[in-house]
């Protein structure tokens, strides 16, 4: 038997922070690729600490639903899962290319494949593009359009910026959008000045965040000038300095994220059969019927 554990931050204050985790877990459940699928959290239950013991499977694939390698993926999650043999060197990563490490969980005697975070997987690039498609409701969006990928920046973790730049470079190489730029909240180039960095009239802005929250639903819309007050909402697209800005919310809420989780597990050796195709079909179908821009508040930051 094999199990998938999706390890996410969660929140003590905001019930919506775990929505993307549950949604992606349910998508994977639907595929039947794993005998067991569990959500696990730092701030909710089951906690990282106690999730593995709830599984009957001997082989467990743990995929952190985090944007970048850093404090949570390198220290907190392995420690709380009791992966005694863990060392960040086991990922042999320069900040964006962790794949997986195979370890034993001390309390249960199971094989744990500890995967790199969802946010740095190559498939995440496709999710960003998918988000651009869904926010513009244009499956061919690209020509005449600029794309800004927005990250937190280096304030807390230098790998956070690396992940943003990594996907930005990959999308640029696709030669699909006229312009592709990486912008940040707390360092240059700053998202506040988004229109300075683009010549295209239409700019799609995709925040590389897992869940919607203070940053994606309050800070960024106000900083970009989409709205005076986030509580009043904003138009999609919104006119700013002669540009049209297409902005929804955290890319982590995009249905195709389930695909990234599956790919992470498959890279680590999970037998997922035809699950990837099933998810892609499902996501394509649902994105045609559901154009929910989504504007929900999110996790508390900083802990």
């Amino acid at each position, binding site marked *: 038997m094999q199990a998938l554990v999706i390890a996410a931050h969660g*929140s*003590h*204050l*905001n*019930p919506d922070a775990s929505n993307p985790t*549950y949604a992606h877990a*349910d998508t994977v*459940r639907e595929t039947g690729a794993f005998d067991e699928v569990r959500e696990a*959290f*730092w*701030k*909710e*239950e*089951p*906690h990282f*600490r*106690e*999730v593995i*013991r*709830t599984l*009957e499977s001997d082989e467990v694939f743990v995929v952190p639903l985090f944007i970048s390698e850093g*404090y949570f993926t390198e*220290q*907190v999650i392995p*420690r709380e899962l009791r992966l005694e043999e863990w060392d960040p060197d086991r990922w042999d990563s320069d900040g964006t290319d962790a794949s997986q490490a195979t370890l034993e969980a001390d*309390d*249960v*005697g199971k094989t744990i494949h500890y995967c790199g975070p969802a946010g740095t997987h190559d498939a995440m690039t496709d999710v960003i593009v998918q988000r651009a498609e869904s926010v513009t409701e244009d499956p061919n969006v690209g020509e005449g359009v600029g794309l800004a990928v927005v990250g937190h920046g280096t304030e807390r973790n230098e790998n956070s910026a690396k992940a943003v730049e990594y996907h930005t470079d990959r999308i640029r190489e696709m030669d699909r959008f006229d312009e592709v730029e990486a912008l940040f909240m707390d360092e240059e180039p700053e998202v506040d000045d988004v229109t300075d960095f683009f010549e295209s009239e239409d700019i799609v802005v995709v925040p590389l965040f897992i869940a919607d929250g203070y940053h994606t639903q309050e800070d960024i819309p106000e900083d970009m000038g989409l709205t005076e007050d986030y509580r009043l909402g904003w138009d999609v697209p919104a006119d700013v300095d002669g540009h049209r800005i297409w902005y929804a919310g955290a890319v982590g809420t995009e249905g195709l994220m389930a695909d990234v989780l599956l790919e992470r597990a498959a890279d680590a050796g999970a037998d997922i059969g035809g699950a990837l195709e099933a998810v892609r079909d499902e996501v394509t179908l649902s994105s045609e019927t559901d154009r929910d821009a989504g504007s929900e508040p999110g996790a508390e930051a*900083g*802990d």
Partner: protein
Amino acid sequence: MSVTAAEFQSLLDAVDTESGIDCDGLRISREDGAYILATPDGVRTGLDEDDLEQAIEPIAEYVTNWHYWQQSVGGEGTARRAFLRWCERAPLEDGGTDADDHVGGEDTDARVTSADDESLAVPLRYDALRDGVDREWGQLCITARLVDDVDEPAGDRVYDCWHVDDADTDLTDLEVYDDPLDAREIATYDEDGRYRPLKTAPTLVSGWAFTGLSGSELVETVEFFYPATVANWHREQRGALDIDHWLETAERQTGIYDVIDELPREAVDWMAEACCVDSQCLRRREWQYEEGDDLDVDGGDGTFPCREPCSLVVAAARKWTILESEQEHSYELELTTSEFNQLAELIDAVAEGRTDEIREADVNDGANRFRARYLRAKRFDEEGSLEARERRDD
């Protein structure tokens, strides 16, 4: 109740392949080509296949019981199986050997064969299952019953799950569900629509029922309401609960929670009294300050154990660690006796979560909103603080 041909065949297969059957008092083995059948009522030997088929007819319940547990439920040694057996008051099986493999240094003596004094033998259990066997798990009421469907094997069980407060409510008055995933949504908000960050808080809303669940669906449902409680309960049943006491948990923390191991010893008692009692959490606290240094507060009477301070306690401990690092001072302020007592009433009302229950016009209650507003109007200064002077003795 009778044994179907298919059940009989799988019984024969099991006797051959698993070198005999031993389940809840039913024992069948084969020696020198003849079957030996034993139940608590007696032993019969020298049976051929036809004899055996006749012999099990009057004890069909033992056979369908075996079929349910071995063929439908399976999962020997798992928490799921142990929990389902607990649900119908079946004797709990020995899980000690499984624990031995994984838990070093703990008390792994196989102490549990029947942890439940009220466990029932098969015929009595079947009588009870026809009416439905009720169990409580936190605020959940779980009913195990025999399937009432001619298309299903005669011994198959189904499970219903609802809120203990709805035990006497008619099913038609409840919102009925059959998908375990729906439990997640129900567990998210309390009856005032507030987020429940602690799943084991005694604030689960009522008004719903899950009916006709299979065994695995029941466990899945229970785990969405109370994550990891079944696994930890099962470990405890086997004498293998791995408790992490306060100090171990605190010292493990990093980042912004690195400080919590500095929380004073006595403050950990206050914290447990604030957060970890039955009125606030249904888990039974088994962790102490450290091994050999118990907290003064009672751990509670919950069915399932709490094996380490949860993330809410850790987060709150950070706040208290910072607050406890402050110096104490003496203050002088003017209050009447009643006003002094009113401060206690206010704190008590908030601590017990009863501010919503205080009637608008009940000005006899010190925590009444108008009483509080009056006190504020009278005793606060321009900065919005209690008017008081810090006393300096030097």
